[in-house]
């Protein structure tokens, strides 16, 4: 039988401080610290507000009344949101804005990247210039555009020869006509974010293996054939990445609207983000806004999952060496 011999050191360890330091040395506390900090942060800023939002969405409550008067009211807020044409219209407008902006950003970014990729002299200068818009703070970009669109602003000044020739009043009020205002906002978004698609496509073009293009050329492929059969398929990952990233961003479009039109004229430039903001912070309809944002969250989650699936499929194809 092995009897344990008690040593002096053991006796000393029996002290409270020794036991505490032994307990500490097992890292029972320290190993939790990173977890608590990260998870704590997520719980505080994400999970709790999210649960509160769900809770509020079932309440009958307006922020201009005391909270004590609020009471649970089932799915009434949801029913109200779903039957509000304003919700559906702003949702539709969001897709219209995001779709138009992203498509044009992809096309323009692609063309710019293709041209800059072929330029040898002064390439860096072009790259720098084309990347500037992305680095401008969105609010600043919005203010700039609000000045550009002024009825005595630079856009009308530029168009003056044309308007005077056609006999139109040169003080065109771009932000007062529903269609013009919509496109003014789309244009502001395109100006700012084509930089990003340009950057993504430029890196895609730079990564094209020159030997593949040479091989195609030697086999007699024309420029168009090289582009359509070799370059474009190899750029597919870059295209998917650009579409997913830009769509996710564009669906949140808010800054240019608040700066340029305040959703107007009428509601013609209201996006879903603006709609939610207006319901909650302008009309104090907290419970209604909460319900609407939960619905938007569900809808966008589906879109985000589709986006993540597409990105994942592309990166798998890249790993398999197929593109």
């Amino acid at each position, binding site marked *: 039988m092995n009897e344990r011999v008690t040593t002096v050191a053991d006796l000393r360890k029996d002290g409270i401080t020794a036991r505490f330091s032994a307990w500490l040395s097992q890292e029972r506390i320290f190993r939790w610290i990173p977890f608590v900090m990260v998870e704590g942060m997520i719980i505080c800023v994400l999970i709790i507000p999210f649960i509160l939002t769900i809770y509020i969405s079932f309440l009958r409550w307006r922020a201009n009344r005391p909270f004590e008067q609020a009471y649970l009211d089932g799915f009434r807020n949801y029913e109200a949101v779903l039957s509000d044409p304003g919700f559906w219209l702003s949702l539709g407008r969001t897709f219209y804005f995001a779709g138009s902006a992203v498509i044009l950003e992809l096309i323009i970014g692609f063309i710019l990247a293709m041209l800059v990729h072929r330029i040898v002299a002064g390439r860096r200068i072009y790259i720098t210039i084309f990347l500037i818009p992305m680095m401008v703070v969105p609010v600043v970009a919005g203010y700039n555009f609000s000045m550009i669109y002024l009825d005595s602003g630079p856009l009308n000044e530029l168009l003056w020869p044309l308007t005077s020739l056609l006999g139109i009043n040169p003080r065109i009020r771009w932000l007062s006509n529903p269609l013009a205002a919509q496109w003014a906002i789309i244009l502001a978004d395109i100006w700012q974010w084509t930089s990003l698609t340009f950057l993504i496509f430029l890196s895609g073009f730079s990564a094209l293996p020159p*030997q593949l293009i*040479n091989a195609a050329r030697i086999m007699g492929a024309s420029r168009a054939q090289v582009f359509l059969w070799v370059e474009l398929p190899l750029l597919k990952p870059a295209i998917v990445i650009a579409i997913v990233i830009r769509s996710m961003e564009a669906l949140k479009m808010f800054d240019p609207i608040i700066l340029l039109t305040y959703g107007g004229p009428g509601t013609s430039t209201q996006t879903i983000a603006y709609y939610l903001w207006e319901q909650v912070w302008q009309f104090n309809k907290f419970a209604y806004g909460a319900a609407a944002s939960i619905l938007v969250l569900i809808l966008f989650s589906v879109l985000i999952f589709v986006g993540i699936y597409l990105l994942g499929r592309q990166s798998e194809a890249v790993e398999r060496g197929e593109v």
Partner: protein
Amino acid sequence: MANIRLTELVKEFGSTVAVKGISLDIENGEFLIIVGPSGCGKTTTLNMISGLETPTAGEIMIGDRVVNDVEPGDRGLGMVFQDLALFPHMSVFENIAFGLRVQKMEDQEVQERVRAAAEALYILPLLYKRPNQCSGGESQRVALARTIVNNPDVFLMDEPLSSLDAKLRVDMRTELKRLHDRLKATFVYVTHDQAEAMTMADRIVVMNGGKVEQVGSPLDIYDTPMTQFVAGFFGMPTMNFLEGVLTSSNGDPIFKSGSLEISLPEESTQNIKDNKVVLGIRSEHVSVSDGALRGQARIIEPLGDASLVYFEFGEEEELVAKVSPELRISPGDQLMFSLQASHCHLFDQSDGHRLN
């Protein structure tokens, strides 16, 4: 079928001159190998023939037309690239069919020709795989099939075997040679591997520093290298070089280097004016079993069918001899050696040109 003529071809990249005026006639149906160290301009020359690079000066003729300004695809060539350049997003079938699709050929004919090419290179079972699912050797065959399917008059190959392992490379050498015999097309092949050049070529072009050092059949180049560079580039191990002077005793020419004296055949030294020379001799022409000169073995490298003996003599001069493996020599052994005077090559010490 086509012959290729290069006339005073020059290529400059900014201030560096990669190719410094090359003139070359490549016969119809010839297997010509351009060989040289990295950066000698061999790939640039090939790229100028293919049209991927535009020459700074000079003229390229394929058949009887000048092709300097002809697009690569209109020159009637096929090219196999160093990294093979298979399209990763297409199946093997579509890779092979690419050149035919470009010409908008009927689908029926595309099918037939792709299958015929695949059959010729034993890759029928691979047709519906992707290039990344093929092994190195298989990819090599796909790249070849993609080239032969277009029936080009000229095949250009830029170190196509460099990505293969040693064993496969030797097998593919034989196969390429067989392919050349069957197709009877002109092959222009670029490599830095002298063994590849020796085994496959009808004629070898040795390039160095943007210039042609020598053009000749493999054995010509091996037996009569025109410069010290060529002599050193071909053969394993590298040719032995000894710096020394030519003198004569009793009218017989003698090469002297330190303590070493070798009498040379008289006719070999007739036209030599400068007496400072480099003597070159291949390892197989150094005998260590008999001779009048004394040396000490340093390193022995058994190759199986022969052994390489590195030995020292005189004032720390070193030579290597290729000897029969039966000859048992250990490092440190004293040995008596001789050089076969009839196989000595003499080069000018200043510019490396052959003297004898």
